[in-house]
């Protein structure tokens, strides 16, 4: 299983919604886009690279060929895909601690949704409806979402610093400007290394799979 690719974890959750209330979910999602403060908790948590919700109507599953049997579903389905940093528990926990009402808003019309608090039934609900990812690709396994955003800031700031340079600037003026650069980037100077191991189980799998295991040849992660 490779739900984990470096610092990112792939979560897939598929949950039924009654076809006649699916429009409510869509309404909330629409509202989330219109009123960005709904998502301020999500933005502040800053644990997600990309996430999406897709509602599939009960009659909208792709049908490609006359030989393919037609779906006969009673419910519509909500697919949730998230690319987040940290372990499953760390992520789910941080979300229920920080934005429980936001989670409830998005899921509350789903059949037998547990609500985000208390935690254990919510854990059970997500786990029950989760699907493993056999193959997960991450273009930057060494970076978290924070790192990606911080990197963009570093690059933009460095380029602006370059643009502000001039030939007749004295060394001292350069130094003063450089100190300003350091100040501007004082929250962007963290160094990136491979992720801490996510769980003991994921660690064991990573050691057994070829391409991941090369990361773990470092003596700091011997078994």
């Amino acid at each position, binding site marked *: 299983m490779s739900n984990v690719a470096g610092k990112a974890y792939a979560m897939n959750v598929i*949950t039924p919604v009654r076809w006649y209330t699916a429009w409510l979910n869509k309404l909330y999602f629409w509202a989330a886009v219109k009123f960005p403060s709904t998502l301020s908790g999500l933005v502040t948590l800053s644990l997600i690279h990309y996430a*999406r919700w897709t509602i599939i109507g009960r009659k909208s*599953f*792709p049908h490609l060929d006359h030989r393919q049997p037609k779906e006969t579903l009673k419910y519509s389905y909500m*697919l949730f*895909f998230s690319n987040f940093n940290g372990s499953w528990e760390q992520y789910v926990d941080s979300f229920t601690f920080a934005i429980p009402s936001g989670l409830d808003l998005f899921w509350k019309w789903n059949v037998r949704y547990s609500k985000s608090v208390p935690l254990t039934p919510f854990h059970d609900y997500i786990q*029950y409806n989760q699907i493993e990812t056999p193959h997960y690709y991450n273009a930057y396994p060494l970076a978290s979402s924070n790192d990606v955003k911080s990197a963009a800031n570093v690059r933009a700031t460095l380029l602006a610093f370059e643009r502000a340079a001039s030939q007749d600037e004295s060394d001292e003026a350069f130094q003063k400007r450089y100190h300003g650069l350091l100040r501007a980037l004082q929250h962007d100077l963290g160094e990136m290394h491979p992720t801490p191991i996510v769980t003991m189980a994921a660690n064991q799998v990573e050691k057994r799979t070829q391409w991941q295991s090369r990361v773990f040849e470092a003596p700091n992660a011997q078994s």
Partner: protein
Amino acid sequence: MANVSGNAYALTVLSPIKEGLVAGKEIAYADAVRDRLYDWNELDNSPMAKVPQTYLCRYFVLDDVYVQSLPSGSYPDNRYDWSPYITDGKRRGSLPAEDRLQSRYLVFSSNFHAGPNADLDGYLHNMWDAISDDIREVWGYCYGFDRVSSAATFAAYIKKCQLETTLFFVGSNDDPLPEQLKALFLKQEFARFAATNQGLPAAELRKNYNEFITRVAPEDLNGPSWSPGQYKFD
């Protein structure tokens, strides 16, 4: 269109897998597809590393939907909950329905940079050009894929399997991947530069900084950078 947020694109694809066994083998098509996906994990890196602009993507096989049997929250779950008298028939009728999928689906979900024109076609063409053999390997047992023979037919096929995203949340950014990777490279290098050049006299600092900028070439996306999917430092 909710598939798009800024310059980022959320592609959701469900491709129905044929029912039946791989010729001469005791393995169903869908299980064979999954097995091939696991094979990809044994490679030096994912084939998707070769597909331009892919931030993060995943493949899995949707075997079925889950019948809900966990207890729910306490608010009335359906209209029978309001009734003072519940017959066994009503009680049974108000249990969550038992849905079953008729096909198993290969699910491909990709987050990529599509640019201001939400260029899905361009992405799919590039994908075909980069990894058509790998694509055939995982999609080969899907309904309708037999009509795929080129980048254009692949793009047309994928769009038939595509589902519209309801909400797409971009938590990192929607910069082109080469820019993201270059930025990560710069972040790492600058952190090291700042640490090793702390407290130097102004002239020396300036000289070192200029050398540093020449070496890391912040503008140059073809210059030193991280490679897509890079999971270790040399």
